[in-house]
């Protein structure tokens, strides 16, 4: 069964790649620059949210949330466009380079894939929870990972040294 899926999967992958290769992006990308972080700070400004919430008008609040989500997604897309442009510059430049190192190319590809993964997760969070909720989720992850780090340090600090000292020689 797995063999069957591998053979059929290879055929599907071939056709999908053909669809992508059919329209190669040959046009030069225009540099757009990295969007300013201050813009996102303004989009997520808590005072705006507090003010709209204080009006106690649910329709207006929903409209506000929707607009901020659109703005946040546009800001994220601008970062993705810049990352794609930088990656495109790299691939175009190395096409004819004599001393290309395949392992270095793997590292570059992995760094781009990691960026795209982060982008997909964050866009998913923004779409699902909205920009304010997504920020809260990220801060929660931060505090959890910080707590885990502190805990692991404490465990290593308290258990590690005596355990080594207790080994009979």
């Amino acid at each position, binding site marked *: 069964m797995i063999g069957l899926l591998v*053979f*059929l999967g*290879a055929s599907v992958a*071939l056709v999908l790649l*053909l669809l992508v290769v059919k329209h190669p992006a040959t046009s030069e990308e225009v540099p757009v620059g990295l969007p300013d972080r201050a813009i996102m700070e303004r989009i997520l400004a808590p005072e705006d949210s507090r003010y709209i919430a204080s009006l106690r008008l649910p329709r207006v609040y929903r409209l506000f949330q929707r607009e901020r989500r659109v703005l946040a997604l546009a800001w994220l897309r601008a970062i993705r466009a810049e990352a794609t442009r930088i990656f*495109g510059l790299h691939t175009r*430049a*190395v096409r004819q*380079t004599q001393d290309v190192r395949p392992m270095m190319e793997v590292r570059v590809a992995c760094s781009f894939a990691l960026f795209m993964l982060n982008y997909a997760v964050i866009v998913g969070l923004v779409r699902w929870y909205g920009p304010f909720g997504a920020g809260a989720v990220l801060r929660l992850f931060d505090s959890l990972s910080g707590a885990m780090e502190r805990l692991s340090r404490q465990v290593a600090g308290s258990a590690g040294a005596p355990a080594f000292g207790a080994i009979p020689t």
Partner: protein
Amino acid sequence: MRIFTPAVWWAGNAALGVLLYRGLRRRLAREYPVFYGYAAYVLCSSLVLFRLSLVSRQAYSVGHWALDFVAVLFGVGVTWEIYDTILAGYSGVRRVGRSLIASLVLILLAKFVANLATQPVRVLFPTTVELARNLRFGQAALLLAILSLLVYYRIPLGRNVASLLYGYTLFIATAVVNLTLRSALGSRFQPWWAVLQPLAYLVILGMWCVGMWSREANPVPSPELEQDYAHLSRQTIAGMARMRARLLNGLRS
């Protein structure tokens, strides 16, 4: 069905004839000798098979698989010709491509050896359908590697080589699907196989005829400024890290 199969057969041979005629007339055969050799071989083997089908069913069956095996070897040559033509001006991509193809061959060999250890008799003596499927799968893997390089490095294609690539890739994809289903479902798939395989091949021949009708040079890569590769790669990786940080920190604020 009685009319359909011979009609497809004659249409296929006519398309092959047109393809060869245009290739010789437009001197494309000099540029793609392996591909036109393959087309000539397929046309000749089709006529031989027609003669064999008049002798006996068994002679046709043996002849079909023997000729198909040689066609697969020709196919490897066509794949190599596509690779060689497309990446002619891209020394950097060729270098990555060599590593990629070498890794693929190693993986396929390792899989073969692993299978040999677990099921020696079955692997040593596969059925003709399984053998044909495995050989086509090897070509599919090579084409996957080539297509990945084209997509990753955004390499532009000329019309001739593009039609060759699209046609041959579709041919391999449909052949792998057909052979896999034929191997898995057995004789139940035979009626479908008899229709789908020649029909798919006829469509692909049509693509080749249109794409190879006249000569069109491949786009020559514009000379890029020579840059320090290691420095450029480090810059790209650092750029990606910066983008990632901006992405994450933007929402945390």
